[in-house]
């Protein structure tokens, strides 16, 4: 299932995210360049909740990339850390929040539970 970053962030909802530590708090701005335009998303992370809005306010972490880079991350096709190392994505500010951002976006769509992978392949050495 492929999705754009736009769809993904809209779908996030306001429910409790039990996968985020209670102690993580901060603001992240995503700047997605698309030709001459740049779209902004503003994520406020606190108390295991993520609030998404549109704002150009300064944030603890600012992440910039081409829109298609964000789309690939939102589709689970591009690894956030690899994108950073490749310089397809640039960051400014508190890198610790980038690590939390990894949990906001999904992993690869074809990923398996290790138990399922083990059962599927049998156990020959």
């Amino acid at each position: 299932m492929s999705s754009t970053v736009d769809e993904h962030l809209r779908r996030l909802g306001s429910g409790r995210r039990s996968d985020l530590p209670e102690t993580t708090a901060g603001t992240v701005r995503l700047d997605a360049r698309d030709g001459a335009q740049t779209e902004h998303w503003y994520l406020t992370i606190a108390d295991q909740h993520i609030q998404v809005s549109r704002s150009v306010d300064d944030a603890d972490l600012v992440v910039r990339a081409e829109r298609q880079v964000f789309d690939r991350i939102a589709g689970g096709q591009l690894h956030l850390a690899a994108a950073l190392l490749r310089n397809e994505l640039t960051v400014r500010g508190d890198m610790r929040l980038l690590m939390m951002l990894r949990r906001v976006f999904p992993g690869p769509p074809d990923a398996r539970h290790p138990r399922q992978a083990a059962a599927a392949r049998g156990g020959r050495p």
Partner: protein
Amino acid sequence: MIAGNTFAIGDAQGDMEADPGEPFGLFSFDTRFLSRWVLTVDGERLGTLSRDDLTHFETRFVLVPGTASHYVDADVSVIRHRSVEDAFSEQLIVLNHAAEPADLTVRIGIGVDFADTSEIAQPRPRSVVVNPDPARGVLRLRYERERFVRETTVASSAPVEVDDTGMTFRIRVEPNGQWRTDLRVTMTIGGEGGRDLRESLQSHRHQVRREMREDLRDWREAAPRLIAERPAVTELYERCLADLAALRYVPLAYTGRIPVAGLPWAMALYGRDSLLTCLQTLPFTPELAPRTLRMLALLQGGQLDDEHEEEPGKILAELRYGEAAAFGEKPTALYYGAADTTPLFVVLLDEYERWSGDTVLVRQLRHPARMALDWIDEYANLTGDGYLRYQRRNDRHGTANQCWKDSTGAIVDRHGREPGFPRATCELQGYAYDAKRRGARLAREVWGDPAYADRLEREAAALKSRFDADFWLPDRGYYALALGPDGEPVDALTSNIGHLMWSGIVPDHRAGALADHLAGPDLFSGWGVRTYAAGQRPYNPVGSHLGAVWPSDNALAVAGLRRYGCDPQAARIADGMLAMACTLGGPVPEVIAGYPRAQTAYPVQLPVAGRPQSWSSGALLMLLGSLLGLAPCGENLLVNPALPEGFGRVELLDVPGRWGHADAYGRDRATDGRSRRSPLR
């Protein structure tokens, strides 16, 4: 020379030239930023009069033109004084000892291949753009792949001719005069707008040009002082502290210095090596532990990812920053293929609190610790029998054996047969047991969750008795190395039984049998416990995990033996390890061959063995701590020495912990009997 994950390896003259067998050159963040750095005077290479390693980041060479056969009356000598920190600096001083002026051509040959550390044997050809700027005295070498940019900039303080392959100085040095230039090599990781990536990170803004000397002095002063009757032991202790200092780096995502695994192949964050190093060094350099825990918590797995072997709650195996990681040629941008790091994370968190009393950190890391504990049952119980198992999902680049014995053929029975996957190696069950017990303590005492604590304790107790029933080999009197997918035991005798004692999963009545195996002739070589006991078909004294001896492995065995009161066996093994390290001198190697000590009389080193290595340097500290019987007991430091015969007296002063600072004293039994001689100080 080492400064975190930046390091330079060259020859005796200080020249560096790429070699397929060894990582020669200047490296940082998993990229080679200099593959050629060769000094000549009038076209001639230099010979070395002396080399002085001043600190881990600073070396001075005194050189003369020509080779050893004809330099005796040299009129010219060269001092090459270099250091690494965030950049590489080399000061060249040319001295003229003659009564006449000397006209000389001094040249530094410069080349960069920008190889990734994973491809040293065969670096791929890269097109490097070379940009000489003679007016500024600068040579720029740049590599680009899409937006990925790495750049080396060499700048000279003295006027210089610059061409594509180096820098040339045509100089005149007056009689008894000297000439000097400062060369500075900057390494850039391309980030936004052509600036270095690190410039935009909070974690790195404060780190630039921190005084390395000052840092080293602070490090040394914070650690306890050891005074031993055998001076070699004191020297070894100082050496290990210095090596641990060298092997600390500041990751991109975090501000504190944390341990890399070691030189030369593993100058990167490895979860297992870092966690064990922290566990080993808590009485000596406890500052490593909270930073490592925080960093690993930040990088904790959040989703399922087959390529990176990631699952929610899992703790990192390896982190790299090079081109191979960036482009997914290796899964090391964040690789999670290790089954032991996650329980060890919980073990370290608890052990650190027991030493430090830092309940604030335990509260802050409640969520990651809980995720780690949940991972054991949710993602590692692969066949549903309750054992922690591994089976890689990345068939191309994943590690087959995701335990500390991670070489491909390491998990085999006495006859050399490999079990199928998923595999449950025994020490993983010990770690899981320990993690649950320690998680229970934290839940009860810090997190205020007694119900969860009860549950973890019940699970740990059940695991302990199930483990004893399923892994114990009654005919052989030890625990199986592993269980195969259908629960069939892998019957080899291995050093892993030492890990079991360290983790506490062994019932008391079994301890004596295991101790006799560990210190017996098949496992104990005289220098240390072999990974795999002699007398079994796959045994090979030069096989990394099939007979060779690892200090880190031995440190856990000795701690385990003391835990169960098997003091003579503990002292015997520790004595062998100390003798090995003192005999070899220099940094403690990662592994030595498993030949019997009586046969070789000298510890045989293996070419694969790196040094220094964090968990080897840490291992020797842990051995000293175990011999002294250091343990936190409530708010006090407990000291319960059991020293090898002939060890003499030892004092460890200012051991840091929740008690502030406390001193520990010990003497071996033979010394106890002697009349007291003059004090050590």
